[in-house]
């Protein structure tokens, strides 16, 4: 009975250790997956290649996978379509700026 009581005392400590272990385990795949991708500031772009928004990630550069979670619903990187989100190394592109031939790792394409 006393042993049980002692075990109960360690329960919160065990919860902390388990929480750290679980979070490290579940996040590991995500980190490995994102590593090789280039990082940019991302902007919404219309069908004519004009910037239509301020940067979607004002707090810092992010890779393409992270940018896709910010992109509008019709942008999911379908090949052979107009691009709708653009990655740029500049955090200061202006609305209506014209974009020409960005590299493929710096664009997310339209689904429809």
């Amino acid at each position, binding site marked *: 009975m006393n042993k049980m009581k002692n075990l109960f005392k360690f329960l919160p400590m*065990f*919860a902390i250790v*388990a929480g750290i272990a679980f979070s490290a385990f579940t996040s590991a795949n995500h*980190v490995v997956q994102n590593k090789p991708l280039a990082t940019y500031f991302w902007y919404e772009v219309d069908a004519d290649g004009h910037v239509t928004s301020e940067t979607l990630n004002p707090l810092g550069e992010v890779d393409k996978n992270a940018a896709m979670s910010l992109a509008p*619903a019709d942008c999911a990187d379908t090949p052979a379509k107009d691009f709708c989100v653009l990655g740029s190394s500049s955090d200061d592109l202006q609305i209506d700026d014209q974009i020409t031939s960005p590299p493929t790792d710096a664009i997310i394409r339209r689904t429809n």
Partner: protein
Amino acid sequence: MEEQLLQPAKKTSIKIDQAILILSSLLILMWVFTIGSKLMTFTKFQMQLLAQPLPLWLNKMLVYVLIPVELLNVPLLYFTKTRIYGFSLSLLMMLSFTVYIAWMLVFHENLPCACGGPIPKWGWDKHLLFNIFFTLLSATGLWLTKTNRCEAIQLRSRLTNK
């Protein structure tokens, strides 16, 4: 004789103590796991939070305020003396998240979830159930802690009066 009469009350109090310990440990596990996975993928968390349909200044503030406040729950729930505040803060936060998710489910189901671990993959409806479960857990913990405190005070006064 007095001790014998007080034995059942003491046993009940020990059982409530253990239940409180289990509930606080489950909440600690949830908070540590959530904080850990947010920190491990901080950029993604940042992006998803900035995409939420709230004013940008609020989203920017939440990026840096949310994790420390969540972290505050852990020591509060860990120590016996502060556990009541831990349960209260957990209940308050879980309630706010639950209301926010219910609102998201109605108006913005396609937006990404700025949550930790595997939760973003679950979808908003499962996330709502998860949050309701931990809201109830916090409420139960708070209620048990308050009940236990009252009983302890009564027990002490009975012992001093006799």
